[in-house]
């Protein structure tokens, strides 16, 4: 059972071939890892869509080559492409390509929710992932907590009121004069900083309130006002950046473990781009031991956007409800699957 996965929801083009029966990834390509283009601060949606269009077919050929299988209906059993959420231009390219290949090859296809992909991404490295579990998605566009009943059934428990955690790090990064994306650099600062001596204490919005919500906009504003103050001149940008990440991680873990306690579920799975933060790993590990929970992450390559998780989520969807019709549309603001 080989699944061809396609993800074109954001800036990266990604294609993968996943063996769903053997639970084995045969090959995977992500455009940003191929150094085809330098990353820059902004995105031009039309150019991104055109880039997906140019890269997609050659990348599909190359994952077949790498997997050692022929690109035809004899080998590929299912095509899975992201249909939302994301930037509409890219989504149209990916889903359109999946439909065309499906028609041409006579192979079924499914449109996949990108968030469902993140929510199963940890299974790529740990196929014994227990259900139900609490799932935290943290990325540039999302900061959400779910109760995951199965790989196709999720219940939203809480989310951010304003900005996503990854957006906070990128915006603070810009204030600190860092290139985009800033997360990795700030992560390094937080790992090296001495936690015993915080230079200043930023607020942990909503942390002490009994709600499953985040508010990272308030944290961004606090950081901004601190940086405009006389006091800030005494501190390095490394120590300011580190404290912002510490505050964000306190909020993320505080609320995720609160969800575990209130739902009486002892496994927490953290996915999405920010889940590749080594500081978040270290803190999550420490607190999990202290509070008696298990914490699991996808491997770092599958925290950021990738087509392997789309192939896997697509397979689960196909097993449950069969192929999609060709009149399925993209949906830029799709919500997760509730079963």
């Amino acid at each position, binding site marked *: 059972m080989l699944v061809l996965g396609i993800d074109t929801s954001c800036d990266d083009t990604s294609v993968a071939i996943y063996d769903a029966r053997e639970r084995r990834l045969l090959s995977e390509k992500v455009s940003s890892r191929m150094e085809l283009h330098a990353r820059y601060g902004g*995105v031009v949606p039309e150019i991104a869509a055109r880039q997906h269009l140019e890269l997609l077919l050659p990348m599909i050929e190359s994952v077949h080559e790498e997997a050692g299988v022929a690109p035809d209906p004899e080998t590929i059993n299912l095509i899975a492409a992201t249909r939302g959420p994301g930037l509409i231009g890219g989504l149209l390219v990916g889903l359109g390509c999946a439909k065309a290949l499906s028609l041409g090859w006579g192979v079924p296809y499914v449109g996949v929710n990108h968030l469902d992909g993140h929510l199963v991404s940890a299974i790529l490295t740990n196929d014994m992932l227990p259900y139900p579990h609490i799932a935290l998605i943290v990325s540039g566009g999302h900061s959400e907590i779910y109760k995951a009943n199965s790989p196709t059934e999720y219940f939203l428990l809480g989310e951010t009121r304003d900005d996503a955690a990854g957006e906070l790090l990128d915006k603070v990064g810009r204030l600190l004069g860092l290139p985009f994306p800033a997360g990795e650099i700030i992560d390094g600062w937080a790992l090296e900083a001495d936690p015993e001596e915080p230079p200043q204490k930023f607020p942990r919005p909503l942390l002490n309130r009994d709600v499953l919500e985040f508010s990272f906009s308030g944290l961004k504003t606090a950081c901004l006002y601190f940086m405009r103050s006389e006091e800030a001149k005494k501190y390095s940008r490394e120590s300011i950046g580190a404290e912002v990440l510490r505050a964000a991680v306190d909020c993320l873990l505080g609320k995720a473990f609160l969800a575990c306690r209130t739902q009486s579920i002892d496994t927490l799975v953290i996915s999405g781009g920010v889940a590749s933060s080594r500081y978040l790993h270290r803190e999550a590990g420490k607190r999990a031991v202290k509070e008696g929970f298990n914490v699991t992450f996808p491997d770092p390559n599958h925290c950021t956007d990738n087509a392997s998780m789309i192939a896997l989520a697509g397979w689960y969807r196909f097993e449950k409800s069969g192929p999609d019709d060709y009149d399925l549309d993209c949906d830029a603001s799709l919500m997760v699957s509730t079963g």
Partner: protein
Amino acid sequence: MTEGLSNISRSEHETLEIGKRIGDACTGGECISLVGPLGSGKSVLTRGIARGLGIKGTVRSPSFNLMREYSGRLILKHWDLYRLEGGFRELGLLESVDNESVVVIEWAERWDELESFSTGIIYLDYGD
């Protein structure tokens, strides 16, 4: 910048109230550009506008998805050009303006042509 009204907000709450008054006054077809640095209150002002339009629930940052839509007395279309470097005409932003909607654009200064399409421009900055 010399014409028009000027408002001083001393708190997030006051910014929210100013936004609410703007939302109250909207009748549909407005295209409001917000111009101002990070943390100057654009999102809070937009949340106020949403309240004025009778929209309940949270108004989250559209930075990632570029646009989020909310239904109230009128439809609020909340755009954010923060992540963009170009290609503005192809976004569908201008096409999103209609009589049933209020379009609010954060980081409007990224697109220099937007001024001529806006029914109102709000400049935000910090006081001392």
